[in-house]
């Protein structure tokens, strides 16, 4: 093995998920070839490679959740399953000739800006790269964040995070605890509810959920899209514009907030007849404070005898040591396989005592915080172009 050399290139793209592939495809399209992609895993696809849990799918219709210049006429559903999205991304990389540009198992360890040479220096397990431009396409929710529950290390059952699903574990007939009730949980719960012996969902705060206008595309529709590609573009535009309509909610316009809340609560009332269960699934905060989810099968899962919603236990973990102990005793008593999930991400850091931008990969960090717990948004990677 010779001394590792530094590879020079013009552009380094970090990550081969949707963002990185999109960036690279556009570069290729202009005829630009002097770039590399650094991917920490052994395949492209980012979140759609990593998240293989039962029921994984996207909350954005497929004809919009895809590259406008790489339309796919044969999406199977309005909201296609995650595996199909992953296949799509692999196809995109292959068809546009990106694969030779990608260095796999080359997770970014450090990136430093050298002000003298005006170049980025990047370290990976596969070697060092140097470039004028560093484009990060690392995603913000790509990494698991495990809740810090005292005593969980002592849990003797199997435990894994939803983004690192252990498919070797057969959950059929088992007692399974799911911690969390967010975007992943609402997809997993209905799937596990089909076969689990007992499923307990630990809910800290209930999400607002609206109906999911999902359906399979017919063969005729898919062929029509293939024969008339403009109709795909038209559909994409319609989906996009409907999303834009939702902006009035984001701007907190009272009527649109009321409209959204009514849609969500009507959906809950339609799907959960039991008033006590419905109350437990009713959010106690204004709509929009957390991501509004879309699902048709999550609420009905709780109508099944083998599915239990646990709202008090997890809430009291944070309240008293006694309650924590009771909670942990409860989860240990109940669960054989346990799935952890919670939003998580990695951030960049600008050292205030240096003129360098440094990449940090803190474990389990939701955001970059100082020792006082204060979030420093100025450390965000938006400054990396400097």
């Amino acid at each position, binding site marked *: 093995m010779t001394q590792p050399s530094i590879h020079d290139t013009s552009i380094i793209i970090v990550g081969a998920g949707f963002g990185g592939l999109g960036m690279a495809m556009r570069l290729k399209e202009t005829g630009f070839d002097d770039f590399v992609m650094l991917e920490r895993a052994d395949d492209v696809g980012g979140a759609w490679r990593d998240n293989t849990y039962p029921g994984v799918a996207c909350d954005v219709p497929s004809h919009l959740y895809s590259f406008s210049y790489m339309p796919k006429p044969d999406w199977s559903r309005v909201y296609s399953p995650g595996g199909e999205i992953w296949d799509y991304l692999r196809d995109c990389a292959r068809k546009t000739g990106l694969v030779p540009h990608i260095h796999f198992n080359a997770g970014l360890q450090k990136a430093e800006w050298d002000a003298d040479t005006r170049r980025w220096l990047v370290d990976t397990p596969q070697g060092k790269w140097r470039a004028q431009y560093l484009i990060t396409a690392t995603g913000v929710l790509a990494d698991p964040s495990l809740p810090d529950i005292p005593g969980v290390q002592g849990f003797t059952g199997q435990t894994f995070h939803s983004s690192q699903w252990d498919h070797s574990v057969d959950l059929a007939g088992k007692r399974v605890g799911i911690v969390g009730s967010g975007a992943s949980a609402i997809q997993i719960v209905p799937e596990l509810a089909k076969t689990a012996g007992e499923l307990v969902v630990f809910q800290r705060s209930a999400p607002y959920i609206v109906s999911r206008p999902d359906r399979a595309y017919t063969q005729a529709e898919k062929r029509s899209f293939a024969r008339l590609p403009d109709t795909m573009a038209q559909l994409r535009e319609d989906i996009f514009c409907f999303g834009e*309509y939702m902006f009035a909610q984001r701007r907190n316009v009272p*009527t649109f907030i009321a409209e959204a809340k009514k849609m969500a609560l009507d959906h809950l009332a339609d799907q959960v007849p039991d008033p006590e269960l419905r109350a437990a699934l009713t959010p106690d905060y204004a709509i929009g404070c957390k991501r509004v989810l879309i699902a048709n099968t999550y609420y009905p899962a709780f109508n099944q005898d083998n599915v239990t919603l646990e709202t008090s236990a997890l809430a009291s973990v944070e309240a008293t040591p006694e309650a924590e102990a009771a909670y942990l005793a409860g989860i240990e008593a109940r669960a054989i396989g346990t799935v952890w999930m919670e939003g998580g991400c990695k951030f960049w850091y600008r050292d205030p005592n240096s003129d360098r931008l440094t990449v940090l990969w803190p474990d389990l960090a939701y955001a970059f915080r100082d020792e006082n717990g204060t979030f420093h948004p100025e450390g965000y990677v938006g400054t990396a172009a400097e």
Partner: protein
Amino acid sequence: MKDSDTMAPAMAAGVVTRQIKVNGLSVTYHEAGQANTAHPPIVLVHGSSGSTMGHFGFLFPLLAVRHRVISLDMTMPVKKGEKLELKHLEAQVLAVMNAASPGQPVTLLGFSLGAVVAAHIAARQPALIQNLVLLAGWVKTDTMMTFFNRTWFALRNAGVPEINDYTIYAAFGAPFLADKTVQMMTAGAMPLDDFVDAQMELNARIDITDLVPQITAPTLIISCTHDQMVPVHHGRALFGMIDDARYVEIGTGHASVFERPAEVTRLVDRFAADPQEYPAGATIPAIKP
């Protein structure tokens, strides 16, 4: 689905509602948004059977994010049976402009019949209109519009509820209706009253062919590709007649303010902030998400 009932109280936080007398009749208008020295306030003029809440439930609060916005609810200015004329509606718009923005020219936006009123004002009172937006407007009622209008009155005079179906059929674009159910679309009925009748009667005999070429204000013309009430050739006619005009087509039916209100808002927001972003004669490219 997005009928005037559910859309109704879409008022921005901090909205102020006032009333003024115009020729002895009370006219309501609403104001929202911070006054902005960089660009003039936007005045919204609704179309037939509309109101601020009915037609601008989305535009009014969203435009108010970056502009001062004034919007009126027009009042029946004539007695039942008397002929409504553009000058009657013009008087109410001018009175509101004078009350809410005295001495300061405005960006005037009209939708449908409101666009005809706005064009009428811009041609006759150029000093008051700094910029003009004509959304689904027209110059002269033609044969297709006449057939719609005659059938509408036949249903109206027969007193049948299907007038609502017929209006929905004509007002919304085919792509928008394609994935909606009849139940969704008929959740609320279009308002019907003497004023709506008077406006529909006026719609049948619009002809501002002589006035439109006199418009000098920078103008944004928005036509709706799938509009069956005011098909795109009317917007293209306006584009040909107004010197300082730029043109854009959006993928909606006539009911653009319901189908794609965010796209309309984006176009108006940008034009009001920088009317010359696109030069006279330019066609603004369609979005390509």
